[in-house]
């Protein structure tokens, strides 16, 4: 009997141990029943994080990567610990590169579309972070059920700490993920303070009529803000709830020879362009008459191209028609 009792106690203990993670899992799933809510909450998280992240991107057949130290502390955050650093608190940001410091200050927090406005969001499981915390994985699928991005929300900090972007064929084209930090890479010094530096421009009214980018793009991208910069550079900032996309307008055509030849040809409306995969995401460059356009986005390349494709070539002004008529035959434009 004593043997049987030990067996019963042992089995009971095993069941109890087995029940603990099960209980945790049930609790976690219960908290993450709504992936859209989890994503929205992560955008206002103020948890602490001190970690190393790896960013990988696939510009062509090769894969490039870089490692960056990140820290978050009660709503403030910093990335980088070398000569290239950036930080802020969401509305006030600074970027320091090679001694040049630029500050941005947003007047208001932009309101994005709901995360599930354009995408089918599903919980895709959990994984342990290098720091030992649990990360909730969320997949955003398109209307054909294809996974286009996997987001990772750190339960401990509430922050989004990983993002994997997939091509139309399911290949991983861009990723940010936590990696184990090397012992000597742990930063023990206080977080860098926001330095003084030149300020970048703020937003401009949406009624500005000299923007060529529309209020709405394809694939559910809605205009959130417009900005003007020196040298007649204008930025229109969009989001579809999951991804963000900017279109930069320049009053000059594109110097294609100055761009990497690795880009792939793409057609935007009736204009020819190229798209690239960079550390910053998908970059699409195209020219329309004497205006150049550059789109930067964290969305998959095909989504970006589809989003900006409705930008029809604008009609030329009378002066531009004369210039086109005079200089066209000589190949000046």
């Amino acid at each position, binding site marked *: 009997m004593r043997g049987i009792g030990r067996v019963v106690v042992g089995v009971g203990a095993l069941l109890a141990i087995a029940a603990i993670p099960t209980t945790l899992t049930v609790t976690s799933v219960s908290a993450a029943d709504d992936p859209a809510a989890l994503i929205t909450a992560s*955008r206002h998280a103020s948890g602490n*994080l001190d970690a190393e*992240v790896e*960013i990988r991107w696939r510009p062509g057949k090769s894969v*490039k990567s*870089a490692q960056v130290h*990140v820290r*978050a502390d009660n709503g403030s*955050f910093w*990335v980088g610990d*070398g000569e*290239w650093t*950036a930080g*802020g608190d*969401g*509305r006030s940001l600074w*970027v320091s590169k090679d001694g040049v410091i*630029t500050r*941005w200050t*947003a007047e208001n*927090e*932009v*309101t*994005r579309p709901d995360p599930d406005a354009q995408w089918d969001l599903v919980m895709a499981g959990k994984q342990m972070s290098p720091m030992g915390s649990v990360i909730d994985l969320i997949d955003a699928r398109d209307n054909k059920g294809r996974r286009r991005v996997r987001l990772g929300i750190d339960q401990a900090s509430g*922050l*989004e*700490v*990983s993002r994997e972007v997939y091509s139309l064929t399911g290949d991983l084209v861009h990723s*940010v993920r936590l990696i184990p930090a090397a012992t000597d890479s742990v930063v023990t010094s206080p977080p860098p303070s926001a330095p003084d530096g030149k300020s*970048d421009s703020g937003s401009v009214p949406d009624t500005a009529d000299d923007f060529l980018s529309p209020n709405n793009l394809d694939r559910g991208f809605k205009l*959130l803000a417009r900005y003007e910069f020196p040298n007649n550079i204008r*930025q229109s*900032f969009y989001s579809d709830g999951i991804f*963000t996309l*900017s279109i*930069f307008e*320049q009053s*000059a*055509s*594109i110097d294609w020879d100055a*761009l*990497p*030849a690795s880009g792939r040809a793409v057609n935007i409306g009736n204009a020819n362009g190229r798209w*690239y995969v*960079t*550390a*910053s995401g998908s*970059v699409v*460059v195209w020219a329309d*008459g004497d205006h*150049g356009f*550059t789109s*930067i986005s964290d969305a998959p390349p095909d989504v970006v191209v589809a989003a900006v494709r409705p930008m029809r070539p604008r009609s030329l002004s009378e*002066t531009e028609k*004369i*210039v086109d008529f*005079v*200089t066209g035959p000589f190949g*000046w*434009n």
Partner: protein
Amino acid sequence: MTDFSSTNNEFDLSEDLLSAYIDGELGPADRNLVESHLAESAQWRVVLDEITNVRSALRSLPERDAPSEFWERLAAVTDTEAAVIDIDKYRRRNRRRNRWMTAIGGAAVAAVLVIGIVVIPKTDKAQPPIGVFSNRHAVQAVNGGAPIVDLVSVATRNRFSR
């Protein structure tokens, strides 16, 4: 014809002078000289008779109206001459006009080229500052977005190199 080689005269009588004599166009002195020669020379009196007879024969011919085509031909010849004259003038005038038109046209083309090259700015080409654009986009994405994931690329070197 009448042979004057053997005639000894200092007056040099001729058929033209004799015709003028017949027509009464000579003055008294010349008329006396002609009549003196005619009195002395039987040959010149023959010539005088021939001229007088021919004139009488011509005057005796009936007067006829010229055929209508004659006047048309004459008018045509006159018009042709006039036309030739007008064409020459026209050509000269056209040459002058063409020179002006060529000059004006050349000046116009030159003006258009000058305007195209100098006055109207040529289409500029610029390299998009992809790195700067990426930073600006990342900064905007952080506002209400995922600060760590959205901003991490800003601290990455060689993000977009040739």
